[in-house]
């Protein structure tokens, strides 16, 4: 499964993070997060393990580039995000070397940092427990309680890409005359293109309200 053509651009992080803030709250999973201050920067360590179950090895080990986009925000309840960031990770399993080549791009490393992980256990640890996610300057920490939210997109497919592959969505008979019949239960066929099930996944996580005192290293 390859979705790298839909890779989010680092420049789109802010917009995506803003979208995250507006994302519906219903589907959010609990998020275990630890926030600290290091070198004047807010950094987060997260537990996203439910987004990367052991069986996802089949997805990430398919020999094609898989993309994971992570967006994290920190906000006081009901307020716009005070801190936010994004991270895009390309994962490519080499079927001959049986290693995972991982490229991570962040705002402070837009060109990407490459690493090679020896097996899926190492890859899962890397994806499920991100460390040192830079949220911005420590001064952006809210005075009161705050919530950390994270959104994980696995292999997002862009609308633009769907458009490129879309042709006639229906194939009605060329000879069928316009203006058909109808009835109380008038059915029509050829509805074939619904939104295709592209197989990507979206996970939204939200932490419990946290107090500034829980931020270590201040």
């Amino acid at each position, binding site marked *: *499964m*390859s*979705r*790298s*053509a839909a*890779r989010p651009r680092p420049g789109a992080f802010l917009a995506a993070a803003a979208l995250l803030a507006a994302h519906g709250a219903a589907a959010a999973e609990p998020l275990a997060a630890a926030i600290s201050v290091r070198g004047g920067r807010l950094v987060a360590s997260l537990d996203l393990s439910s987004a990367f179950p052991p069986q996802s090895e089949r997805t990430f080990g*398919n*020999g*094609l*580039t898989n993309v994971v986009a992570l967006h994290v925000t920190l906000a006081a309840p009901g307020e716009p995000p005070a801190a936010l960031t994004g991270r895009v990770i390309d994962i*490519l399993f*080499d*079927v*001959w070397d049986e290693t995972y*080549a991982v490229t991570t791009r962040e705002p402070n490393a837009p060109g990407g*940092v*490459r*690493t*090679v992980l020896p097996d899926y256990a190492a890859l899962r640890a890397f994806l499920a427990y991100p460390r040192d996610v830079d949220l911005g300057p420590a001064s952006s920490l809210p005075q009161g309680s705050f919530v950390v939210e994270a959104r994980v997109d696995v292999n997002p*497919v862009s609308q633009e*890409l*769907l*458009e*490129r*592959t*879309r*042709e*006639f*969505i*229906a*194939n*009605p*008979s*060329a*000879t*069928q*005359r*316009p*203006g*058909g*019949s*109808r*009835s*109380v*239960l*008038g*059915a*029509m*066929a*050829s*509805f*074939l*293109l*619904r*939104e*295709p*099930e*592209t*197989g990507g996944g979206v996970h939204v996580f939200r932490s419990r309200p946290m107090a500034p005192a829980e931020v270590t290293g201040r």
Partner: protein
Amino acid sequence: MRSRPTAIPAIATAIALAMPAAAQLPAAQLSAAPAAVPARPASAPEDASGAPAPRLYQIEKIEIRGLSHAHESAVRSRLLLTEGDLLDEEKVLLSRLRLLQLGWFSRVETRVERGSARGLVVLVFEVDERNTLLVSDLILGSTPAQPIYGGFGLSQQNFLGRGLGMSGAFVYGGPPSGRPGDPDRFALRATFFAPDLELPHLPRLVAGASALWLRGEEFTCTTPDCSEADHHYGSAPRLRYERIGGEATIGFRPGPFERIMGGYRLEHLHGAFLAGTTAPGKLPDLRAGDSLLAALTGTWELDTRDDFFFPREGLRTVAQITFASHILGGNYEYSRYYLQLETAYALFGKPLRLQLAVGAAQGDAPFFDRFYAADFMYFAIGPALGRALELNFSTDSRYDAFLGMAGIEYAVPLWRGSGFFRRGYLAIGARAVYSSAEPGAGRTTVSKWPFSAECALRLDTPVGFFNASLGYLVDIVL
């Protein structure tokens, strides 16, 4: 370095630098002689982080797994890669999306497996086929002159597993009310459509054919509701007619969302006037006895909608011209023009859909090639009722030469899920229809008011799209 979709020019350069010998070999040659590929493909230079860049692989074999109905060659023809190509992830992704958008599969996954030698890979497409046999027509109706009639249609969107469309439908009304010994009225229609026809030395074509057998009646009373018959419709005068024929079309696709088609239509017609106990009114246009209708048709279709059931963007336009003449072998000399336009539910940024239709028929067009206004209304206040597969079960037989329709629909999405009723929305609409028998004749009062409205529950299911229409119920009552 492996092909990266977002930086193709750079990658092309990198490929050329990394493995010039392989890159210069034609794909067929590579396929025939995999030994020509380096046993361990050259790597791109290491990047600043010191990690090696991914390597470039050649596709030794493409496997499609999970097919039960769809023909493998039909699936392969949609892929953008062939065996012997270098593995291009963008083409893999686009191929996968193309397969998904065919509508034949509920799931398409891709993966790469080791080939027979280092540097070679097997590209695997794993698919789950979905149902492509759909209900196309489900008709149940009642009029004062016909207590009950009904019909059914099925459409196979992947006929023979080769992406061909095949559909059939029928409507049955039995003998006319009050005349049990008369022939049954029915309509049968069968259509075949090849959306992507490959012929040697020609661009890809589209082709279709349809057949129709219809036996019906049109009342010829002096009033639209045949009030002079006093509900004894068996004694009313009528035109009994029969149509047997078909149409063959062929065309091409100037763009991914367009079709231009030309067709030849030939029908054998038979019309007979049956006098009743009341005085006859105007007869619908049809030659008495046997006649032939021969016509050329030209159709342009544009469909950029993103979804057939609930489009949120795009446009559907159909323009059709019919030209019938003696020189084509028929007995009728007329032309017919029809234009239909329908937007997605996205007008003014709201879930609003605009619908427009205009039509004109000139010359001695038979009545069924004119415009029956009730076909274009949500409901008609009066005896007229929208036809079923072109069969008219109402007492109103007024067909017009000019038609204009404008409508707007507002949609309220209700749910989406994975059950039988996958999606549903409530459609609330209004339409105005104007039709006229001839220029300057004024509006034909097929409906007392030119306006009609709709409130319908539309359902998307695995077997078709259903429309539970309050407008149609009102139409039957009014």
